[in-house]
């Protein structure tokens, strides 16, 4: 993948609260890299929560976090360790 100038790919982690999910599928549909898919398993309420299938593809754009109507999915960005500067964890 080609990046302009000093831009670096972001690093982070996707957190999914499976019990709060209602299985609407918004995150799966609108993920630009198809990182998520609806899993076969049920949660306590009988919905199918999403699961991460291709985490290495994720660009941490946080669209899934913004679109999740249940507030059950969020992304945390990792700080860049090489540069040693304290960058914000949230944009």
């Amino acid at each position: 993948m080609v990046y302009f100038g000093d831009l670096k790919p972001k690093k982070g982690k996707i957190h999914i609260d499976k019990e709060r999910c209602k299985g609407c599928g918004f995150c799966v549909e609108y993920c630009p890299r198809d990182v998520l898919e609806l899993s076969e398993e049920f949660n306590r309420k009988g919905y199918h929560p999403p699961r991460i299938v291709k985490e290495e593809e994720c660009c941490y754009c946080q669209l899934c976090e913004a679109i999740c109507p249940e507030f059950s999915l969020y992304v945390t960005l990792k700080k860049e360790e090489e540069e040693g500067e304290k960058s914000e964890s949230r944009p």
Partner: protein
Amino acid sequence: MKEEDRLEERNPMEEFLRMDRMPHIWCPGCGLGTVVASFAAALRKSQVDLNKVAIVSGIGCTGRVAGYVKLDSFHTTHGRPVPFATGLKLANPELKVVVFSGDGDIVGIGGNHFIHAARRNMDILVICVNNFNYAMTGGQVAATTPIQANLSTAPYGNFEYPFNLPYLADACGAIYVARWTSLHLRRVTKSIQEALAKKGFSFIEVITPCVTLYARRNRLGDGLNLLKYYYENSEIQHGADTRTLDIDFQGKIIVGKFIDKEKPTFFECMNTHLKKVLGDKYRPYYGE
């Protein structure tokens, strides 16, 4: 685990929502949660003091927002969020008052309050979540239901002319009018940010899918289908003439920012006028 690491692992909505009230009552596939997330993002980005923000909402699905946010909030009677917000603003002009309610609440039952707050140019922001029906009470025809839509009080299709909300707000004197669908989440966020920074009556309409009633009765699929449908059938036309913004059943939806102007607010008009009439006897109530 270190303290810093632990903080990072927290859900960012925790500072904004009462997590003990979650999960919320909204149906799976409803777009309301997305609008609340956009609103939270707008508050975070515009860096307003959360102690100076008050949310007012009425009855309805959207009215539940007041109970879920961790801000000063007020859940009022049906159709009356705008007069309550007017009172809040008059009593404490420092507050940023936001009315977050549905279409049935703001322009159906509280239509008269809405037009008069817009006429006076009260300094409040009204976010109207439009799902085209009275969803919490069982899918009755609302003031915004498009012609032909089938609902529980219109089993053969609706035949009443619906409201064109941006035109209504514009005609009554709103200074900021925008319309988006709930999938335009970054644009909704930006719009709310702009409106929060403005002084005067701002109005933002957000079109969301109602999956359990509107979509089911009209056989439009699930929430995802409807969300995608609204997005794909929307056309961005900034500054479009508000008279042309009617929504037909399953027709094209024109979205964008239509009105963005400056006008003296209620407080400014009151202070200028009374100062002119009463002279030094009058002590200005706000600003100056």
